[in-house]
């Protein structure tokens, strides 16, 4: 920087420091939303989908005139799938970029770190990560909202459906960290409640996609249903290996979630007849008008279809805009109050609502099954919808169970 540029910057900075309130009122600054998200690292594909959804929502809000007459600006930052980085990026977004709200976080543990920062700064946060803790004590707060499904809801819905439709004798292989353990606990509980048995639950280290040592034992035990709780690329590796050991022939394969980029990665043949759950699948456009307009806009903008996480990002940004419009304020507490007072919304699928006691979103989910390769529709039509599980507060723990008085 030369001397003249330095003087210019210094003068501007001094002016800004001297008259911050005046400056803010006179220029119509955009409303800023910080969006920490693991753009690099193993969840990159999901993050890309989510970034697209959030971008589309921002553009739509701006195309209809923004909020309170101001443009919406979403600032994406790479949290690298690390809690410390997520916390740092969030702090920078709040303190340096002066964002009014935060949406984002995909991995549960990073999302918790983001939440610590937003709570401290009094900034409204809409989490779009699958997490049980975020809407429960001690992590929850009146300005923390949770848009995504959580392992309890997904697990209870998927387990109840599968134990009644697929078989009673189960084997569970799960990734040995928060999300994996929560799913293992929820599934085991529901399977037993419906008269099923879990022959064994075997943990494996997250991100280490070698399952061969588990498979001889599973072969010998002959379960009816094999549940793998493995995120991302691990899920593909698990299926490859389980199937190569001949397990698909007599065992029903189940995962808690179907995430389309990984179905694509594994391919139709691998995922055919594999069951999973999802909060959104693009073929819902055939039956739900709002899904149709969302998928069409997404396709037009990005030349591909959205998946569950893309729609969480999309809905999260639209919810902030709706909250601001209803509250007629950028104050986080006012927006939070407005959302709780007007809990029902629907941005891209069927009706959703916020539960007032824990700021948790309730929404429909769907059970899907991988299509055989011959029945795949286009590039992304890898799944078929088997069942709809309607939004139901009983699928989550009660607010009392989550520590809310």
């Amino acid at each position: 920087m030369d001397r003249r540029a330095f003087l210019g910057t210094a003068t501007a900075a001094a002016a800004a420091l001297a008259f911050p309130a005046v400056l803010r009122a006179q220029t119509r600054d955009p409303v800023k939303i910080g969006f920490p998200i693991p753009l690099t690292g193993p969840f990159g594909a999901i993050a890309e989908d989510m970034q697209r959804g959030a971008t589309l929502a921002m553009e739509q809000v701006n195309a209809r005139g923004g909020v309170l007459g101001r443009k919406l600006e979403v600032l994406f930052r790479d949290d690298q799938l690390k809690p410390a980085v997520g916390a740092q990026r969030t702090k920078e977004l709040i303190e340096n970029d002066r964002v009014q709200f935060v949406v984002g976080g995909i991995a549960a543990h990073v999302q918790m770190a983001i939440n610590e920062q937003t709570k401290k700064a009094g900034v409204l946060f809409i989490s779009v990560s699958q997490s049980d803790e975020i809407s429960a004590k001690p992590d929850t707060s009146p300005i923390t909202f949770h848009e995504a499904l959580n392992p309890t809801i997904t697990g209870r819905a998927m387990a109840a459906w599968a134990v009644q439709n697929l078989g009673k004798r189960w084997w569970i292989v799960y990734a040995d960290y928060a999300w994996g353990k929560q799913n293992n606990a929820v599934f085991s509980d529901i399977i037993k409640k419906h008269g099923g048995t879990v022959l064994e639950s075997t943990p494996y280290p997250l991100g280490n996609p070698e399952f061969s040592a588990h498979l001889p034992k599973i072969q010998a035990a002959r379960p009816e249903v094999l549940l793998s709780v493995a995120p991302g690329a691990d899920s593909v590796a698990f299926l490859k290996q389980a199937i190569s050991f001949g397990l698909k022939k007599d065992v029903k394969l189940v995962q808690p979630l179907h995430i389309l980029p990984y179905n694509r990665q594994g391919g139709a043949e691998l995922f055919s007849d594999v069951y999973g759950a999802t909060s959104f699948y693009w073929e819902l456009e055939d039956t739900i008008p709002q899904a149709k307009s969302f998928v069409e806009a997404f396709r037009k903008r990005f030349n591909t279809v959205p998946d569950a996480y893309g729609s969480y990002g999309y809905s999260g940004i639209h919810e902030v805009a709706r909250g601001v419009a209803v509250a007629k304020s950028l104050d986080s507490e006012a927006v939070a109050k407005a959302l709780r007072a007007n809990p029902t919304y629907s941005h891209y699928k069927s009706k959703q609502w916020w539960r007032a006691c824990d700021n948790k979103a309730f929404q429909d989910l769907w059970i899907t099954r991988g299509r055989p390769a011959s029945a795949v529709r286009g590039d992304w039509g890898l799944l078929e919808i088997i069942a709809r599980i309607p939004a139901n507060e009983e699928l989550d723990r009660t607010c009392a169970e989550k520590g809310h008085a």
Partner: protein
Amino acid sequence: MSASALAAQLFTGLVLGGLFVLLAIGLSLIFGLLTVVNFAHGSLYMLGAYFGFFLLGLTGSFWVALALAPLMVGVFGLLVERFLVRRLYGRSIDDPLLLTFGLSLVLVEAVKLVWGKVGLTLDPPRELGAAVNLGFMTFPVYRLFVIAVTALVLLALWLFLERTNVGLVIRAGSRDPLMVRALGIDLGRIWLVVFGIGTGLAGLAGILAGPMRGVYAEMGVTIVIESFVVVVVGGMGSLVGAIVAGVLIGEVVSLTTFVAPKLAEIMVFVVMALVLLVRPSGLFGEAGLLE
């Protein structure tokens, strides 16, 4: 534990160890001669799988891809040695370690730029896709193929090192580089060759692993740690050590998974700690290489 269950578990562990051996041998070869701790080994393994995918798409033949992908990675390794690692010889052991660590991060992101963030599918050839009944268990034919390739490669490497003149120079160079130089031999060229072979082996492991574990940019991240454990247990720079330790670690993982799956990951490090307590330079290692 019944006899057939034990047999199934031991056999699975042996095959699992084969993949460790292939990766550890390349690491150990490079370390033994160049004293370079090649942290990019996992990324080169990943690169082997991606090159394999690319070649399979280009030629339509898994066999051609299997033959050429390791060569491509090996050539890439030659370039890395010639233009990056070579500048750091004679410096502290940390410098090439940091360089290769940085390179591994660059490669992961570069691969995502070229092939996208979504991983890829690399299917085994039809004739190897089935599972076969071994009597005590059903086992994938492809994994049997991998163990056969590993055994062949080890045999070829042994013949190369023991029966050729270049192999003689490599062995001499790893024992006393100064003396070999004094004999008028251009060790720089030998180092280049060894780096190429070591990285080529990582590429081979990558394309072999692709059909079992999937192809994605981070596929080398955890396996490189396990491979380092194998190298340390076997003794840095010892090829026999890499083989013995690879099989040992494979069996430890397999048997612990059978008895107490929660402990499988930690047991690998327990074994490493125990071995290092009794033999600080590993099972077959020589003291002093790391100084």
